[in-house]
């Protein structure tokens, strides 16, 4: 902490943040067994983080699917390959767009709310009050939100992918007149369970979920207890999460594909 105050350099400050964040992750993981005592709180967080993000995830997924189908149809029609629309949508969404866009939306919707909530709990002494009631705030506040994000992200990514297919089907089949059977059969022939669904959707979204929740919880937990501090912390959550998601996406794609 002293080191951070001393260094004005942005690079050093970012490095110090990453270091603090890593240490925080260790604290968090150490608190996870204790937080199982508060399993009910984790369930509540899955509701707040996951279930309440469903609307934005589904609406965005629908539109992403629709615009993808529209664009692909026009490009593919040049080669007479419009029947491949479903296949290309599915591959693009399963492998990249699904996990990445879900994670970005998740950072914007759930990440900020986690940061703001914990930041406000810090600012209004609720965390200190828990300390005083001999309740570990890391185990009671931070860990359930982290776990909640970890559980919710892959599920949200699945829902996002499904609504994307729905959106592309709406535009491709119902509107642009691609044959329904070809749309699905081409997709089914092209998509593979392991590389696309497991490595694509599940692994990526799990990693993104962990990273975004960690950043959100960390920023909230370490924010200066002022309204200004909370405002900055939420901004930092979105910025840091977005960078982390896209950078990790590259790394994961390189490793998993």
């Amino acid at each position: 902490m002293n080191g951070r105050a001393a260094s004005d350099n942005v690079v050093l400050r970012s490095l110090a943040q990453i270091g603090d964040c890593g240490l925080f992750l260790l604290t968090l993981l150490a608190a996870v067994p204790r937080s199982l005592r508060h399993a009910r709180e984790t369930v509540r967080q899955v509701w707040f983080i996951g279930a309440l993000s469903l609307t934005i995830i589904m609406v965005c997924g629908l539109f992403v699917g629709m615009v993808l189908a529209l664009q692909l149809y026009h490009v593919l029609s040049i080669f007479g390959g419009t029947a491949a629309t479903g296949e290309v949508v599915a591959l693009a969404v399963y492998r990249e767009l699904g996990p990445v866009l879900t994670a970005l939306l998740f950072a914007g919707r759930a990440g900020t709310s986690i940061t703001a909530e914990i930041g406000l709990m810090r600012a209004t002494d609720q965390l200190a009050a828990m300390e005083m009631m001999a309740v570990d705030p890391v185990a009671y506040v931070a860990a359930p939100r982290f776990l909640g994000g970890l559980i919710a992200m892959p599920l949200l990514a699945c829902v996002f992918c499904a609504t994307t297919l729905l959106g592309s089907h709406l535009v491709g089949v119902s509107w642009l007149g691609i044959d329904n059977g070809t749309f699905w059969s081409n997709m089914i022939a092209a998509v593979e369970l392991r590389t696309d669904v497991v490595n694509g959707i599940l692994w990526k979204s799990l990693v993104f979920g962990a990273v975004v929740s960690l950043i959100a919880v960390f920023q909230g937990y370490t924010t200066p207890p002022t309204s200004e501090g909370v405002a900055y912390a939420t901004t930092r959550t979105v910025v840091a999460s977005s960078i982390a998601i896209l950078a990790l996406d590259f790394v994961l794609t390189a490793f998993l594909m």
Partner: protein
Amino acid sequence: MSQRKSYAVGTGLFIVLGFATLAYLATQTTSVANVRLGDTYTVDVEFANVGQLKERAPVKVAGVRVGQVKSIDLAPGKEAADVKLAIDKRFDKIPEDSVATIFTSGLLGDQYVGIEFGHARKMLADGGRLALTRPAQQLEEMLGKFFGAGGAADNLGGTYTVKARFSNVGALSAGAPVKMAGVAIGSVASVQADPVKLDAVVTLAIDRKYDQIPDDSAAAVFTSGLIGSQYVAIQPGGSPDMLKDGDELVLTQSAMQLEDLIGKFLVNGSPGEKKPGTSPDASAGKQ
């Protein structure tokens, strides 16, 4: 307390929904069905050329899936690929003299192994071998046969030039080959638009060796291969007079927009049918 109940119920619903979509994505939109196998028996096949055939590609009889390709190997020192087919036990009445062929589903689709039944009484058993095979048809070769492949003609004997007018030359450009009966006899010297007649004037440089071309021959702009470059084909006529330097070919046929043709074909055709030959056939007939 009722508050807490609703969280739990809502969270449960959310998780069930999430797993349901996962199950849906995993089973209904993937080829997981292709991966899952019932009891199968293995048949060995040897192909001279497997083309783009991949493992887990379908094996079909009469267009219906009966199994999949288990492995593709090339034994060292051999020129033929060893392909093992895993065929569903239910389909155990395949005659031993059946023919295995590598087909392509659609023009640009994946390849699969098709089995055409023979007439032998003896049926294939596990570890059996299909002796009769036909290798993958290389689309390029097929098209090449239709359109006639060949390099530019050698200009050793010098050339003479002939003009031809086309209402549409497509993507024809200078340097493109001029072919007769599929064999290159010269090249396109220039492609220019006529400012008065508003058509394209193509100058053909034809090798002097080929000076016995009737002057009522027709010139047409064709495309070599599906997405290949265009060339000028000369179809000899019956006139006793031969073309001379500076003559003009009167009968011309403009470029067919092959992309349009294939576009229509791809959209309308169903993927299972094999129609790649249809379109080239049509244009080849004119040659």
